[in-house]
């Protein structure tokens, strides 16, 4: 059980130094780099001490998965291969995590849906796999365009679900995500979502930590469930099979296990707050008008606020960073002065608005929209227009702008 020894300060086979994660992420010098989101994923994984990465091609995550293959060729990852489908890939990830590896994978849109049966299994088996979800359209007719509908399906799997706004979020949260999801009292998988193309395929300046520093390796013996490597003596778990007896004990066992998963999601709250500096970011919380958003809709909301200020309308912003755990108390506090809460979203159903409506008092304050879907962009003017129309102000026709 070499993993139980502290390796901080020692070097891996690539010459990277296992570094205290807090020092690496909060104190170490950073270098500005001009990268696409996919390249940023690669750079984060270079520093993540991953044991196994399993890949499958689907737009727009393919580039990230391919770039991580380059890392494997360079010797930064223990093993890497292409699975045969997303369902198989997520199963292969599960196998690797059952065996005590730190595991990473990526998916997108229809792939997320194809793999869906695995996600409650991951959570139920307490496998701290990290999966990047580069959201895109999932429904017919075929679309490869950005759309965040798939997040709504992930939110009830028992996984941690975070929604990154920028490539910088991505870089930091990939590394911090492992720190949260591998905590013994959490030990759950993490779906780290972003809006496909908007984040993955655009270039941005990202502050990177030194490439010669990496996270300490995963210690599977800190798991709340046994690692399947026969290093611990196995026990015969029970005299009777666990599911086939239709009696109260069987039901109660399964029910309590499900509740424990969701309790673990809640227990992740304290770790996440420490690493992400809160589950939300908020500004102008004394404003009558608040925009609450996640992902790149936050950026559009921020720009809309600037435009509204030019017209003398003051608005505030809540950036929802984690969807599971759900920052209910934080959102209630940040919106307590708001007369109107607008929730711009890149999906047709408005899942975030539904969550917020279920969270805040006087939920008729919540305006579900504007929505764009099917890959359409969301010009901040749409948000401005929605707000002004609701307030009874005259809004300029957007058609004239060709948007």
């Amino acid at each position, binding site marked *: 059980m070499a993993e139980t020894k502290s390796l901080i300060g020692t070097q891996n086979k690539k010459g990277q130094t296992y570094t205290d994660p807090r020092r690496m992420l909060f104190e170490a010098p950073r270098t500005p780099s001009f990268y696409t989101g996919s390249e940023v994923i690669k750079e984060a994984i270079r520093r993540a001490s991953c*044991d196994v990465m399993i890949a499958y091609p689907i737009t727009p995550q393919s580039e990230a998965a391919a770039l991580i293959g380059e890392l494997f060729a360079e010797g930064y990852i223990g093993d890497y291969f292409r*699975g045969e489908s997303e369902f198989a890939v997520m199963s292969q990830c599960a*196998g690797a995590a059952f065996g005590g590896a730190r595991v990473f994978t990526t998916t997108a849109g229809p792939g997320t849906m194809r793999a869906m049966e695995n996600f409650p299994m991951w959570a139920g088996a307490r496998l701290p796999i990290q999966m990047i979800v580069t959201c895109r359209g999932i429904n017919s007719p075929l679309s490869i365009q950005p759309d965040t509908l798939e997040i709504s399906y992930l939110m009830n799997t028992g996984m941690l679900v975070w929604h990154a706004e920028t490539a910088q979020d991505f870089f930091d949260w990939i590394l911090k995500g492992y720190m949260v999801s591998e905590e013994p009292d959490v030990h759950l998988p993490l779906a780290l979502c972003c809006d496909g193309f908007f984040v993955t395929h655009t270039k941005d300046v990202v502050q990177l930590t030194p490439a010669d520093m990496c996270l300490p390796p995963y210690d599977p013996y800190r798991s709340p469930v046994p690692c399947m*490597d*026969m290093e611990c003596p196995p*026990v*015969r*778990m029970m005299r009777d099979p666990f599911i086939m007896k239709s009696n109260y004990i069987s039901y109660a066992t399964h029910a309590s296990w499900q509740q424990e998963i969701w309790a673990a999601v809640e227990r992740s709250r304290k770790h996440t707050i420490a690493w992400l500096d809160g589950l939300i970011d908020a500004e102008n919380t004394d404003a009558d008008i608040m925009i609450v958003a996640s992902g790149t809709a936050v950026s559009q909301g921020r720009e809309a606020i600037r435009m509204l200020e030019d017209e003398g309308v003051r608005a505030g912003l809540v950036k929802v960073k984690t969807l599971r755990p759900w920052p209910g108390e934080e959102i209630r506090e940040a919106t307590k002065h708001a007369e109107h809460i607008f929730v711009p979203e890149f999906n047709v159903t408005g899942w975030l608005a539904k969550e917020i409506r279920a969270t805040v008092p006087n939920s008729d304050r919540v305006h579900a929209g504007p929505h764009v879907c099917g890959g359409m962009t969301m010009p901040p003017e749409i948000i401005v227009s929605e707000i002004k129309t609701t307030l009874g102000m005259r809004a300029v026709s957007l058609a004239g702008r060709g948007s």
Partner: protein
Amino acid sequence: MSKERIKIAPEFFDIMPPEYQDLVQRATYGKEDRGWKDIGTAKELIEEHSLCAGCPESMAFRYILASLPNPEDTVMVGSTGCTSLVFPMVAVHNIHSLFGNQNAIASGLKRALTVRFPGKVKDVVVLAGDGATVDIGLDMTLQAWFRQEKFTTICFDNELYANTGGQESGLMRKGFVAKMAPIGKQFEKVRLPEIARESGCHYVVQCTVSKPSVVERVIRNAVFVARELGPTYIQLYTPCILEIGKNSMEGLQEMRDSEKPTERFAYKEFVSEPAKQFLAELAAKEKEKKAAAKQLASQEA
């Protein structure tokens, strides 16, 4: 793992459950020559199972577990079905995740164990029914073989979906009337042993479990070949006596009847050239070992 690691502190021995005491004192962990003949004489890796009385699958389970060459470092992967009723009572780490994904789970598992324990042998053995192996999980079964994953796949072929009440499966013989095959199955039994050979398996055997010595030999060969060369596949006829209308005592005869040379479970073995060479070397070493032991015994006498 080794047997050394499951010792009980002497001060606590008497308060440990008798089953655990027995496991520590009489388990076959760490015993190189363990085999089916240890069943009933040494602590086995399976306790009271919950399968139907007379179920041939329970026989197969015992023979397989007794034949594992390295149970103290073997992890088994199962799937939904009657196998998942037994695994909770098996003293080997075992994984049940979803229906049909057992070979994908095993792929990730074997690779993770190889990364984590580069200097140690960790065997992975998949054990699933024909529905999981040949129907819902066929793509993952085949792709694991194409990728040359180094683990053994064992299929308990009972020619139907037993656990859910006897529905048609891909390995069911043509014409058999079953639930969901109301006018008889319309296509031939899938020829998975041949497909396994063509898909890159180095050692493939189809047989029944009527003869424990045969099961022991093929399981050991399959595990050793998988460890050294690549994927291996064993297809065992374990009839569901309940669903084919047999009595508890008739399972063994059903297998004997089905393994005759003209029947569908006649012994079938495919071995790749590298595996032939490897097994020959293994047999030679075994022979040498036995000769040395015999010589030593005669000297002592």
